[in-house]
């Protein structure tokens, strides 16, 4: 039997401090330098203290709703995330399906791969005019931009993953005479899952980048248009608060997909 020695309270702090302290010091330093640089009589960009003073209502109240596009940043972000969720979910379903098809069929792969390689390099916003022409609707077009941005990394990673299924596993399935359905669920999908999730993680980051840009052009409620609207109304302090939101949400999205993949692909650990 082993006896457990209760750890002193100090112990957790000793572990915690070296992780938290360095970024905290950097943050304070940046804020101080920023404050000094932007402290003239009429600075081009607002200093931190000015931002807090002028955009206080945005900071303390993320969920106010005064109708139209005049909503708190929390609500703006939720609206943007809703568009991302729809476009990203569609891209995942379509991307994984086509990726598996392309990865398992050499002939189809040869036929479509050159086009995928070209299409994936098209910047997300370049799709917007085409989408607007086709859908004649800002909302659908914004979602389409997310879809077309997110689909390439998912599709290409899935097809690579499917092609990388080790020969050993294929041999096992041949001996066991697994039918197509069993092979798909017990071997193909689990073996390519790490690749699929890598694609999905890249896609999540790109989707968030694309939505902010797309919303600037399509308008309506959403963090992208909020930034554009604030610029047109010369509310520079609001833009900076919004940018902090965009960054935090982007990080959260990335972590979310990362932990989801860890949970599902635990066997690889």
């Amino acid at each position: 039997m082993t006896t457990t020695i209760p750890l002193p309270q100090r112990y957790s702090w000793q572990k915690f401090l070296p992780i938290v302290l360095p970024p905290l010091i950097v943050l304070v330093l940046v804020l101080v330098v920023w404050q000094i640089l932007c402290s003239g009589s009429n600075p081009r960009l607002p200093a931190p203290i000015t931002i807090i003073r002028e955009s206080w209502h945005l900071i303390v109240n993320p969920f106010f709703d005064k109708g139209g596009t005049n909503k708190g940043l929390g609500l703006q972000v939720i609206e943007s995330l809703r568009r991302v969720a729809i476009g990203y979910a569609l891209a995942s379903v379509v991307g994984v399906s086509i990726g598996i098809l392309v990865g398992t069929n050499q002939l189809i792969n040869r036929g479509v791969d050159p086009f995928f390689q070209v299409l994936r390099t098209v910047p997300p916003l370049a799709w917007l005019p085409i989408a607007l022409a086709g859908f004649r609707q800002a909302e659908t077009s914004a979602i389409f931009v997310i879809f077309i941005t997110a689909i390439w990394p998912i599709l290409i990673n899935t097809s690579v993953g499917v092609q990388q299924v080790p020969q050993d596993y294929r041999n096992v399935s041949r001996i066991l005479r697994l039918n197509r359905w069993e092979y798909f669920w017990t071997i193909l999908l689990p073996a390519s899952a790490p690749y699929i999730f890598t694609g999905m993680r890249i896609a999540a980051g790109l989707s968030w980048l694309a939505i902010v840009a797309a919303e600037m052009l399509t308008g309506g409620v959403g963090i992208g248009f909020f930034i554009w609207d604030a610029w047109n109304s010369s509310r520079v302090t609001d833009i900076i608060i919004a940018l902090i939101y965009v960054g935090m949400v982007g990080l959260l999205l990335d972590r979310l997909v990362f932990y989801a993949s860890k949970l599902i692909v635990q066997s690889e650990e």
Partner: protein
Amino acid sequence: MQSLPLPAPPQSPVELPFLELRDVSKYYPTPKGNYTVLQGVNLSVKSGEFVSIIGHSGCGKTTLLNLVAGFTRPSQGFVSLENQRITAPGPDRMVVFQNYSLLPWLTAYENIHLGVKSVYRPQNETERRQVRQIVEEHLELVGLTDAAHKKPKQLSGGMKQRVAIARALAMRPQILLLDEPFGALDPITREELQDELLGIWERTKVTVLMITHDVDEAIYLSDRIVMMTNGPSATIGEILTIPFAHPRNRARLTEDPQFFTLRNQCLSFLYERFALDIDHD
């Protein structure tokens, strides 16, 4: 009975040995003509026999095993098991691979279960229960009941190979094909698993075809040792019969002067008559 000229087609009324390789050649087409891996291999294995195949790297041992497993087909001649010509892989010829080939996303239990399920294809709850029972019995057979719900990553090399052996045996194959099964293990685990395999074989009398590099292992386990000449165009050079009775005991065996005679015969075949001429490569 009608008599047919040899080689007889496998469906003939002429009774073939349990496992039969007759005039088997295997070559692969290359731009410079055919590359012959195996040339004119003839081998008959009786039911319940333990046969080892030994030879240098590149002598076509694995090709030979793949032919029996059904992964590849002979370019000439035929391979038959119980009068049936082998044309494709099947669960009646389960392979235990050197790298275990367990599915890493399934637990030890699930890996074995997948194999057993694919053989029996249970249709109702009674049959499903029987399948689960077979899985549990075989986990117990290799002493891994406690590790049933661990994933391969959590198991040592020896334990992984135990799971692979349990999976193979649980499928009740007509012949067990072992491809250097203990090659990746440390010497102590290797001996442990050899003892276990021998024990299992002595109880179940399953027919075994094993590839190995290890002369001692081959003598300890086998009824016969097939020694291959060097490739290309490798063939069976000599077949050595191991006369020791079962059950065998490692300690007693290694003190037997006959063991050394056999060992020397094997070694002289490998390192004198068919030594690898490195300068030639």
